[in-house]
């Protein structure tokens, strides 16, 4: 992944998309529901939802360019840049977007966790691993390390714990790669992988539910 410009936080969407909400037959879409933790938010149909959607990244760019606010402004061409920034700030204030310093993701990673969507299609001819629907071509191919994260991270309470497990597992390899056994470096990798998965709805970020608040 290309290193972001200094001082440019990554823009990461938070919440489980629950779809468009139509209140009654023949009615217009009232908004889009997104659940964060135990709270369901309604995003206005239009620029607000568009900005939240674009925070997931786009498949042709994910993993190639840093997904910071400048990138998001470029993608949201139909919306005035100042309005994009205003909407981003509002979404961040509601916990629907996280602005993350890629060089210091520990705080974010300790407060957020990962849930996966789609099916795992295993290793493909490319050597990468497929995600998608069984019996169909992959929706996206990701590296084996990203695939391992996608398959295991839902088991952990937060991203830091998931990264720690991946680092420990890598250390058990007969010939471990040092960078893959350092939890801090793995966590940096994990944060860099998220848009690779988010851009095709292969999962979502949610807040960490502490034991006391879990249902």
């Amino acid at each position, binding site marked *: 992944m290309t290193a972001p410009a200094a001082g440019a936080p990554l823009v990461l969407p938070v919440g*489980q*998309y*629950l*779809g*468009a*909400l*139509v*209140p*009654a*037959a*023949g*009615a*217009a*879409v009232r908004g*889009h*529901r997104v*659940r964060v933790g*135990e709270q369901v938010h309604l995003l206005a149909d239009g620029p607000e939802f568009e900005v939240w959607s674009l925070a997931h990244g786009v498949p042709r760019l994910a993993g190639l360019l840093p997904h910071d606010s400048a990138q998001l402004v470029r993608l949201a061409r139909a919306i005035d840049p100042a309005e994009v920034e205003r909407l981003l700030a509002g979404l961040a204030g509601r916990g629907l977007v996280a602005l993350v310093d890629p060089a210091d993701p520990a705080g974010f990673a300790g407060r957020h966790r990962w*849930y*996966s*969507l*789609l*099916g795992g299609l295993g290793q493909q001819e490319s050597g990468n691993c497929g995600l998608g*629907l*069984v019996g169909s071509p992959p*929706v996206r191919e990701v590296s084996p390390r990203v695939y391992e994260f996608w398959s295991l991270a*839902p*088991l*952990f*309470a937060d991203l830091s*714990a*998931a990264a*720690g*497990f991946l680092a420990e597992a890598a250390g058990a390899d007969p010939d471990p790669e040092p960078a893959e056994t350092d939890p801090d470096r793995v966590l940096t990798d994990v944060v860099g992988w998220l848009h690779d998965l988010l851009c*095709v*709805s292969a999962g979502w970020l949610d807040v960490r*539910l502490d*034991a006391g608040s*879990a*249902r």
Partner: protein
Amino acid sequence: MVALLPLGNSPEDPHAWALGLPGQPLVHVEDTVHEVVVLGHLDADLWTTVQQVATSSGPSGAAPEPRTLLGRVLDALPTLLSVGAVHLDRAVPRTVAQ
């Protein structure tokens, strides 16, 4: 646990909730079954989610009895599983690292 993206309902049939890929609905389920599907990951087992949804469906009086709702979920499962909209796992705490 849900495995496809919830896409919401539509003006044509507001009681049918779609799951699929972005812009590509693959299966529809009714309101309360949909709630169980999209909330299932929060609980340690399916029965707990069914009970939660049955007791929190709002004051409209439309909330089914838990066993009735469980029956609807079980009826929907073959279709949901066949398109990869959900997956089942053992009833153990999903979070192994607190």
